[in-house]
């Protein structure tokens, strides 16, 4: 990536580090800095505003109870594009912020091959190559990136309308816009589940920034090694032994 982007990211991260604080106690590691958390929740806010106002346009007969939140169907419709602009803006910053850890590696391909084991029979520990993000997270990240581009292009076409772009372009954009939204909605259920109930201890990384060391060596061993310098499997083994002796 160009140095201008790096400099911008560093500046933004530094600014938010000066204002924001993290709660990192003993036995914990800092996972998400304030800038990342800020972007994440701004993206989430605009995502849900756009989603709920979009429901009212998608199937008004089913979701008309959503539209009064925005002051009625017509107002929901006229605000929806602005929510979308907010979503794309903040997610665009997040893309810059996360570009490096989200790059695909060979280990990720392996991870995807073993997806069944990750999902159905929980392996107790992630493969040691799993870094800051695992392949599943990367897939979702790039899905949202591509989806946002689709949203942006088709959204602008729908916003400006048939008068400029022609009827057929609008009719096709409308379908692509909806498909992009549905794929993202499908993914977001999985995202919310895995960050809360599915993997206890994850949610705190996006609220106050930290995760437990045991969480780190379990789910992101390579990242654990990178920040602590210790071997994740060894650390886990030690903790296990300690737990057993403590019980005796």
């Amino acid at each position, binding site marked *: 990536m160009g140095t201008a982007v790096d400099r911008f990211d560093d500046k933004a991260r530094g600014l938010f580090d000066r204002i924001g604080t993290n709660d990192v106690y003993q036995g914990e590691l800092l996972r998400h800095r304030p800038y990342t958390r800020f972007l994440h929740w701004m993206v989430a806010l605009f995502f849900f505003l756009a989603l709920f106002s979009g429901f*009212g*346009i*998608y*199937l*008004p*007969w*089913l979701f*008309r109870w959503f*539209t009064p939140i925005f002051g009625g*169907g*017509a*107002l*929901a*419709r*006229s605000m929806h594009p602005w929510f979308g602009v907010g979503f794309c803006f903040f997610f665009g910053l997040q893309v810059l912020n996360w570009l490096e850890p989200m790059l695909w590696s060979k280990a990720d391909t392996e991870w995807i091959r073993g997806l069944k084991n990750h*999902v*159905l*029979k*929980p392996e*107790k*520990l992630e493969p040691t190559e799993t870094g800051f993000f695992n392949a599943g997270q990367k897939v979702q990240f790039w899905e949202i990136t591509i989806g946002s581009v689709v949203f942006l292009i088709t959204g602008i076409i729908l916003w400006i*309308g*048939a*008068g400029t772009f022609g*009827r*057929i372009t*609008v*009719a*096709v954009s*409308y*379908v692509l816009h*909806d*498909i992009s939204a*549905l*794929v993202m*909605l*499908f*993914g*977001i*259920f*999985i995202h*919310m*589940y*895995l960050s809360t*109930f*599915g*993997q*206890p*201890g994850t949610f705190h990384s996006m609220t106050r920034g930290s995760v*437990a060391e*045991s*969480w780190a*060596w*379990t*789910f992101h061993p390579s990242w654990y090694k990178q920040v602590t310098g210790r071997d994740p499997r060894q650390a*886990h083994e030690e*903790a*296990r032994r300690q*737990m057993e002796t403590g019980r005796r």
Partner: protein
Amino acid sequence: MSDRRTLQIKQISAHPGPIPGEGVQRDLEVCKLVDTTTCIGCKACEVACVEWNDMPFTPTTFDNTYQTMPETAWSFWNLIKFNEHQREDGTIQWLMRKDQCMHCADPGCLRACPADGAIVQYSNGIVDFNQENCIGCEFCVSGCPFNIPKFNPTTKKVYKCTLCSDRVGQGLEPACIKACPTGCLKFGSKDDMKFIAEERAQQLREHFGYANAGVYDPASIGGTHVIYVLHDATRPELYGGLPKDPQIPWSYTVWKWLAKPVLGTLALFGLLGVCLHYVTVGPRKSQPEPPPRKER
């Protein structure tokens, strides 16, 4: 019971249930006939439309022709389009066409509309907008082959010609018909209007030298409830953008009635999937976790 009749509904946009009162009484299909060959461009129909529908002033533009504005507006539903057509022999033919909603038998606006009850088609053929249910998404604009629905940025709703459904429901003719001084506009049942139109076209072909004269009632959208007699029915584009073969984007039909519910349900499977995952496979916990309680 008085002779006061209400209009019966035939189709409702994006409506999931049955149509209330469908088929209770039989209705004649109505039709407006516009004979472009006898139109003198007086614009009386424009004035009558604005008057009857109580619409505010719409700004006009001046471009050295009789055309007061380029196209219809949310507050101007009826506009005569003036077209100067140069024939092959160099002479000029002045074509005038009263542009308004065509009230298609298969309305593209209604197909595209996602809002329940925002667009209705009456069994007499009139297609009408219900602004109270309109969400202003403007999908109808892209659904319409005739560029008729117009968005009002203040109310954020879409408006168009109603074929004076309020007058027709009371047994009156539309306001434009009442105002026309030449008899170029006629109103009646579709069968009658079609008969008169064909007769006029035949007259034009046989006695006035318009070999291609004919009736514009495009079959590609199931016919319309406003039909034209044209000097040259083979080239309707000459009359200010009248499409020869009007089409409704196929994506609306496929998407709205098939893919939308199916794919929407698939997205919900994400929610179902994670719930089932939690109660069956269970969450993944940070290791080591304390061993399970021993059974006594």
